[in-house]
């Protein structure tokens, strides 16, 4: 059984450590917030200028001045702080954020990531994704193993315009987990979703990986 969206997020949450400052992308990565292990202190950063994202607000506490980077209303915590966009990206670019979890359209075997534009389609922009992959200490990609059309997304070379080159540390798909210890090493298959065979993953992947 492949992992569902929430199980993929839960797998990504296993990479959290006590005391981490973390930025979560939009989509499946957002679900990681619901899977933070009990008793672990993890501070979520929102790139529009907040540390310490709280849960969605109660209906009577909704505040238009308090949103996350996905423009959803959120709440604050007693430990929260606010700052401007320049400070927000200073902490991202400056390597102060421990971990980011992002979605992707393609990841290459060399750790390149493409997740911001498809030529010929309407381009909406990269937002903060290029800054995150360039500055955060550890980059985890969470994505479906294959596209809706069945094409592999973990591939030898990205075909789409890149968001970052040689930046990804870990890939979590609905079928498997790939990891590399540093940016000079190849990815290694380290885990399979329950009931998924290594040969099955091999058959659905064109990227080179070990294990």
């Amino acid at each position, binding site marked *: 059984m492949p992992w569902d969206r929430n199980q993929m997020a839960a797998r990504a949450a296993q990479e959290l450590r006590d005391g981490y400052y973390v930025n979560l992308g939009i989509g499946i990565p957002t679900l990681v917030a619901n899977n933070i292990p009990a008793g672990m202190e993890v501070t979520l950063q929102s790139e*529009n200028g907040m540390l310490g994202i709280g849960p*969605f607000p109660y209906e009577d506490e909704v505040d*238009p001045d308090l*949103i996350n980077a996905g423009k959803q209303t959120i709440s604050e915590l007693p430990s929260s702080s606010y700052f*401007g966009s320049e400070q927000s990206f200073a902490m991202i670019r400056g390597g102060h954020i421990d971990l980011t979890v992002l979605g992707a359209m393609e990841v290459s075997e060399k750790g390149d990531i493409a997740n911001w534009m498809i030529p010929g389609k309407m381009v*909406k922009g990269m937002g903060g994704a290029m800054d995150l992959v360039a500055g955060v200490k550890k980059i985890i990609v969470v994505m479906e193993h294959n596209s809706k059309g069945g094409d592999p997304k973990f591939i030898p070379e990205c075909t789409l315009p890149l968001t970052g080159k040689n930046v990804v540390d870990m890939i979590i798909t609905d079928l498997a987990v790939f990891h590399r210890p540093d940016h000079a090493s190849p990815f290694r298959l380290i885990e399979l979703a329950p009931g998924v065979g290594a040969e099955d993953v091999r058959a659905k992947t064109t990227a080179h990986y070990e294990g």
Partner: protein
Amino acid sequence: MKKIYPDAGAALDGLLADGMTICAGGFGLCGIPERLIDAIRDSGVTGLTVVSNNAGIDNEGLGKLLRTRQIRKMISSYVGENKEFERQYLAGELEVEFCPQGTLAERCRAGGAGIPGFYTKTGVGTQVAEGKEHKAFDGETYILERGIRADLSIVKGWKADESGNLVFRKTARNFNQPMATAGRICVAEVQEIVPVGSLDPDCIHLPSIYVKRMVLGAPYDKKIEFRTTRQREAA
């Protein structure tokens, strides 16, 4: 010197010209200088280059200036859900320079701080790096990005004192802070103006030196793009 003007139109009087560059604060619809945007629309000024993280949505924020076709070029990181923007962009009527969000914030901060360029890792190996100077520092490659100076900055604050010291509120601060410094002149709209001495000098987010003109914009009907809530558990 009196910085408080009776309305947004008066606050912008004499500052607008066709073809000018404007830095605008806000993230999505949060913390956008909406009264000043309305006044720019009403002025009819055209051929604008607008530096703003987003481009509003249809009929809200900068979307209003797109609808009236007063904007020639946007410098933004994410233009999101905006049909009129999409139509003009695909028809080649609107020029767009996509800039990574952190690079955009820093370009404005740097421009306002008198720094004409800086090196960053963001965008190395991507389209963003094309045509830009590359330089290695300590074994890592960086690209040169230019600081941005604009003719005018428009921002929205929460509270101001009469001298122009500004305080923002929660995530409505966002790009307002760097944008305010990047313009040769900055006009701020605020929710409340309080007497000098009412704000704690240790808690000012934007010192008065950056704010040349102000207008009281309240009352606001702040828009929410995605209203997400949770239920109270039954007692």
